[in-house]
């Protein structure tokens, strides 16, 4: 998957590209409006990540160029402005999703994956890890071919892990993914712990292996 990241903060650009490259994506970067125009004119991308605040132009103006040159690309807007105005405008102009700074890299990755699934695998949509298969259309999870009875939140958490497999996912990032930014209980990690315990139990009931590992009390990692 080929990705163009348009972001003027070099550090953030590097961190995003680093994370996504490890996820097996091919990342190109542009830190100015000018450079972004160049890249967009010359190449085709599957996903474009666009920061709206650029030093030499408004990111919103790039959207029309993207629609013109890279009409098939999925477009994810990143903004520090957290403003509904920008969000509505961006989505109106054809952006597919919107994420506000500061965000968790795992969340960014999850959004890109979901965007890619919606864009490129029309209908048939399965993620597989050994004996576990998730169908993101029917929202079903199967272990060794047997369906798991998961709650919506358990499903969301498992999908989040599957997408970010082999990475340490922080509890904070899971909490925000499930409950959003402002939830009163988003920092109560006991709830995450009990959800994860339930997921493990349900997978093990179907003779699945436990791939959810605790990492130093920071979070969890979904891996062999």
């Amino acid at each position, binding site marked *: 998957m080929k990705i163009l990241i348009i972001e003027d*903060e070099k*550090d*953030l650009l590097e*961190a*995003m590209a*680093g*994370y996504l490259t*490890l996820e097996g994506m091919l990342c190109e970067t542009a830190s100015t409006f000018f450079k972004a125009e160049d890249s967009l004119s010359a190449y085709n991308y599957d996903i474009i990540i666009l920061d709206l605040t650029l030093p030499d132009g408004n990111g919103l103006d790039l959207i029309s160029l993207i629609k013109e040159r890279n009409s098939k690309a999925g477009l994810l807007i990143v903004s*520090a*402005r*957290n*403003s*509904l*105005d920008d969000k*509505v405008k961006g989505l109106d102009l054809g952006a597919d999703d919107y994420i*506000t*700074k*500061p*965000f*968790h*890299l*795992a969340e960014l990755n999850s959004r890109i994956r979901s965007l890619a699934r919606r864009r490129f695998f029309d209908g048939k949509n399965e993620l597989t890890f050994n004996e576990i298969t998730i169908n993101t259309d029917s929202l079903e999870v199967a272990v060794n071919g047997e369906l798991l009875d998961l709650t919506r*939140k358990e499903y969301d958490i498992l999908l989040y892990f599957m997408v970010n497999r082999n*990475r*340490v996912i*922080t509890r*904070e*990032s899971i909490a925000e993914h499930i*409950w*959003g*930014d*402002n*939830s*009163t*209980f*988003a*920092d*109560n990690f*006991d*709830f995450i712990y*009990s*959800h994860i315990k339930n997921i493990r139990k349900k997978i093990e009931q179907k003779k699945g292996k436990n791939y959810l590992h605790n*990492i*130093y*009390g*920071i*979070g969890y990692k979904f891996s062999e």
Partner: protein
Amino acid sequence: MMKLLQKTNRAYFILSASAFAVAGLVTYLVLSLFLESQLNEKLAATKDHLVETIETSGVVYNDPPYIEVREEPASSEIKDSYSDTIIYDASEKESVPFRQLTGTVSIRDKNFKIITRNTLIEKSDFLLTIILTTGSVFLLLLLSLYFINKKLSRKIWSPFYSILDELKKFSPENASFDLIASGGIEEFEELRLTLNKLTAKVISDYQVLKRFTEDASHEIQTPLSIVQSRLESLIQEPDLTEIQAAQIQSAYSASVRLAKLTRSMLFLARIENRQYPESEEIDLESIIRSQTELFSEAIREKSLSVEIHSDSGCSLNANVFLAESLIQNLLGNAIKHSFGNSSIIIELKQDSFVILNNGAPLQVEPRKLFDRFYKASSSSDSFGLGLSIVMEICKANNWHITYTVENNLHKVTVKF
């Protein structure tokens, strides 16, 4: 608190009352001295006339108690002297005060003692008359002054009161504010100009402050995302020691907490700056149900039940995002603070939303809870912004919110 007019009236009353008392006293003293000397002159004249009559005609005239002439032995000689005396008047059956002139005169080798008298006005009558006169003048003066003052002051102070009325409508959220009335009086004109300057300053400071919160929170977001993403990358390192991991974890939690804080502050500033203008018809009940689902773990953990009573349902025009946030904050609070094993009751009507939960009594007045960064307990890990956000959402929509506590029952009412 006393009105200005009341105060001047009171001072004026005290001052003029004492002035009138002194004036009355002086009048009394001067008048009695004057009357006395007049009376003395008259008595002397009568005496002279008697002496003359005796000298010329030898007739001795007596008219007690006014005139008494007696022949006296030559040895007793009295110089003229004035005195006051009291004589019983049989006809009027009362003692009457008299002024008398007593003296001896020798006429044609005879010695006469002559007493001339005249009635004296009684001192108490005299005093009473003076008190009554000055008193009524005083009252008259006071009354007329009171009415003049009242009328005049209403007129004089009218620009002041209109400035006051205008000023009461002032809010720093006004785009501009200009006092008009001054009534052509220099002092009030000065007051008006000063107040205009002051309110302009308040408005501009308030705007700067509002922008500042928004700009500052906004500017923090980008560096914060760098910190957060760098730490997230660092966590991925496979060879971290437990101590390193703990240190990264603590820095990371702090950065996440800071991110939440700036997000809340930014959100608050944006509601204040009315940056959520889009509104649509929303179904509040379905928002309540989805938010209840979001809190399902906490609700289960505390063995709570959420009862939603909605007879007619409630649809209103509002911003979805703000309505969700309102419900999320109020429901979250209710769950957090209620005792376990109980119900949270939500009553939804066409024009109001009520949420009831039990919980410990408040240590402060409920309205204080809406203050920014106010925390009921210092140990709480919340920022104390939730209810401020609720308050701002209500203000932005012209909704009225009240919070009451009765017998451990907390009740929040939002009237649409």
